[in-house]
C-alpha cells in the first residue's frame, strides 16, 4: 500500500542574489513498511526534502501525497493536525520536553489526541518496553543518556501509530553502540508495527541497515536502490 508519493517536487530559495534549487524535481513513492534511507552529502537537499514531506515547509512546486491526501491543499491548522495523526518525527538532537518524564514525553501526543488514560498508559508502556526503557519510564531526559533519549524520541514518534516516521540524522549525536542499538530497535519496530521509516542520513551504519537507499545530490535523486 502506497503511503507517500512525491511528485515533481521543487524548492527554490530566491532571497539571495543567486537562486538556490535546494530540491530540484524529485519524484518518489514509499510503500507501507519500508525502511529507507535518503543519503547524500551536506547541502544536498535531504533535510529540505524531509521538511516538505513532513509538511513543515512548503514546496515551490510539486505535490506531496500522504495516504491519498495532497498535503499542499491543507490549511495551517489542518496540516498540524494531519502531521499529528500521520507522521512521526525523530530529530537529530532528540528534542524531548526536558520537564516531562520519558513516559510523559511519549504520551504527550496521545494526550493531544485525547486518548483515554488507560489507552495512553498501555501504549506508552508497550513502546517504552519495546525500546528497552520499560524501567526508565519516570526518568527525565536529563537523567538519560543520549542513546536512551533518542529511543524515547522513537517511542514518541510511534505513539499515535503514524503512517510513517521521518528521522533526520537520528544517529548523528550517538556513539557506535547506542547507534547500533537504536537502529536495531527501529528495525524491530518497523517489522512489528509495519510502519514506514524514512531516514535522512550520511551515517554508514544507517545505510547498512536500510533496505532501500535513495541518493540525493544537488537536490536531485541520483540513485534509488532496493537491497
Amino acid at each position, binding site marked *: 500500500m502506497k503511503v507517500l508519493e512525491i511528485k515533481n517536487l521543487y524548492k527554490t530559495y530566491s532571497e539571495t542574489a543567486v537562486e538556490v534549487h535546494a530540491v530540484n524535481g524529485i519524484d518518489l513513492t514509499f510503500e507501507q513498511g519500508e525502511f529507507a534511507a535518503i543519503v547524500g552529502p551536506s547541502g544536498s537537499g535531504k533535510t529540505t526534502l524531509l*521538511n516538505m514531506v*513532513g509538511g*513543515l*515547509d512548503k514546496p515551490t512546486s510539486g505535490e506531496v501525497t500522504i495516504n491519498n491526501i495532497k498535503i499542499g491543499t491543507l490549511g*495551517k*491548522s489542518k496540516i*498540524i*493536525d494531519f*502531521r*499529528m*495523526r500521520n507522521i*512521526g*518525527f525523530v*530529530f537529530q*538532537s532528540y*528534542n524531548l*520536553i*526536558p*520537564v*516531562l518524564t520519558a513516559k*510523559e514525553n511519549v*504520551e*504527550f*501526543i496521545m*494526550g*493531544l*489526541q485525547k486518548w483515554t488514560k488507560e489507552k495512553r498508559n498501555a501504549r506508552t508502556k508497550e513502546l517504552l518496553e519495546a525500546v528497552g526503557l520499560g524501567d526508565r519510564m519516570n526518568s527525565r531526559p536529563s537523567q538519560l543518556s543520549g542513546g536512551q533519549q533518542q529511543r524515547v524520541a522513537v517511542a*514518541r*514518534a510511534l505513539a*499515535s501509530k503514524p503512517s510513517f516516521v521521518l528521522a533526520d540524522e537520528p544517529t548523528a549525536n550517538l556513539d557506535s553502540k547506542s547507534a547500533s542499538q537504536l537502529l536495531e530497535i527501529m528495525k524491530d519496530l518497523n517489522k512489528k508495527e509495519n510502519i514506514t521509516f524514512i531516514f535522512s542520513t550520511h551515517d554508514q551504519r544507517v545505510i547498512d541497515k536500510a533496505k532501500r537507499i535513495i541518493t540525493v545530490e544537488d537536490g536531485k535523486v541520483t540513485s534509488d536502490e532496493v537491497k
Partner: protein
Amino acid sequence: MIWKTSWKNIWRNKTRSLVVIISVTLGVVGGLFYAAFIDGMIKQRIDNVLNNEIGHIQIHNKDFRSNNEIIRTIPEGDKVINELKNDPEIQAVSGRLLINGMLGVDAKNSGIQMLAVDPENEKTISGIYQKIIPGTGSWDKINLKNKIYIGEELAKNLNIINYNIRDNVFDSLREIEVSEEVLQKLEPLRNKRFKNEKIFIRELKETLKSSYNNSVKNQIMNNARYYRKRAKLIFSFVNADSSQTSVAYRIGGIYKINNTLFEKSYAFINANQFRKMAEIPKGQYHQIVVKLKDSEKCTIIKKQLANKYSSLEVISWKDIQADMAFMKDFMGIMYNIFMVFILAALSFGIINTMLMAVMERTKELGMLTAIGMNRKKVFKMIMLESVFLSLSGGVVGMILGKILIAWTNHTGIYLAGVSEGMESFGFAAICYPSINDTFFINLTILVIITGILSAIYPAYKALKLNPADALRTD
C-alpha cells in the same frame, strides 16, 4: 496534559520564576495592605463620625442651621421622634438642644456648642458615654445638677488638666522602672504644679536635657497628670429673650474620641435641666439625630424623610461631613489607581519573563508544532504558564496579606510620629487595617487578568515561529 506541562514549565528556571512570584507576592501584599490601611482609617473615622458625633441623619428647623438661634426649635419634636422610632429602617432616635456660647474657667474661655441631651436616648445614638476617660467621672452623673461633659482637648485649653510631680508620682515612676538618673534630674520639679501640657513639657525638656525622650515624657506625663474635677465652668449664651445668660457647671466627666476638633468644640449637658433654665417648651428640640440599621440606605431614607417632613430640614452625614464623604470616595479611587500601577509593574515583569521563556524554547516550540501541537494549544500553554506564575504569587500574596491585615487589625498600628496631626483631622492615632472580601475577590480576578494580558505578547511571539526554522535553531 497541557495544564501539567505548563505547570512544570514554570519550574524550569526556578530562580527566575521565584523572582517573579515573589514580586507578584510583594506587590499584592503591598497593594492589599495599603488598601486595608486606608480603608481601616476611613472606616474608623466614619464610624466615629456616625457613632459619636453626628449620626446618619439629622433633622432641624429650616432656619436653625443658618443662624443657630435658641428659639429655632422643631415645634413638635417629640411627635417626630415617636414617628421615627416606629420606622423599621431606623435603629435609634434622639433629640438634642444645641446652644452656642462661651465656656470659661478662671481667665480661660473657649467658644463651644453645648449639646443638651436626653441621657438615656443619647446612649442609643452616640458612644460618648463609653468614651469617658477613667478617673474623670462617669456618664451616670449627668442627671445630677449642672454636670458637664467636655472633651479632653477642651479640658487642656481650659487648663483643667494640670501636671504635678507629687511624691507618689516618684513612687509610681520607680515602679514602672524609670531610671534613677531621670528621677534624680526630676527632683527640682517635685511638687511643682504646671497649668498645662505645653508648659510642663517645656520644663521637662529643660530639666531632663539628654535624658528626655518621648517614652520618658509619656511615662512622666501619664503619672503626673491630674484633672481639676472641682473646677467651676461658666457657660455664657444668648437666651431666647436675647439676654446674655450664664450658668455654672462642674465636670461630670472628660471624654476622648480621637478627634481634637470635636473634643475642643462640643460639650454635653442634661437637656431637661437646660430646658427649664432656658424656658424651652417640653418636646421641642433643635436637632433630631437618627441612626439607621443599614448605613448604605442613608441617601434613600434621607429622601423619604425629607418628603415626609417637608417643613423641616433633613440632612445626611454626607451633607454635614461632605469632606469625609468625598475622602471616602476619593480614597476608593486612589487605591484602585495604586493597584493598577502595581499590577502594571507586575505585568511588565511577567512579560519579560515569559518572553525570555519563549525565546529560550524556540527549538522546543518548533518541535511541538512539528509533532502536532496546534497553535491554539501552544497559545494556551504559554498563557497558562503566565497565569500560573501570577496566580501563584497572587495567592501567596493574598494569604500573606490577609494574615498581615488580620494581625495588624488585632494589634493596631500606632502612628507615633503623626498622632497629633491625625487626631486634629479627626483620625485615630491607632489604625486598625481592615478589608472586605469583595476586594479580595476583585483582586484575584485582576491578578488573573494581568497574567492573561501579560502572556498575550509572548504567546503571540511563540505562534509566529515557523517549525522548520525553529528546529534549525541551536
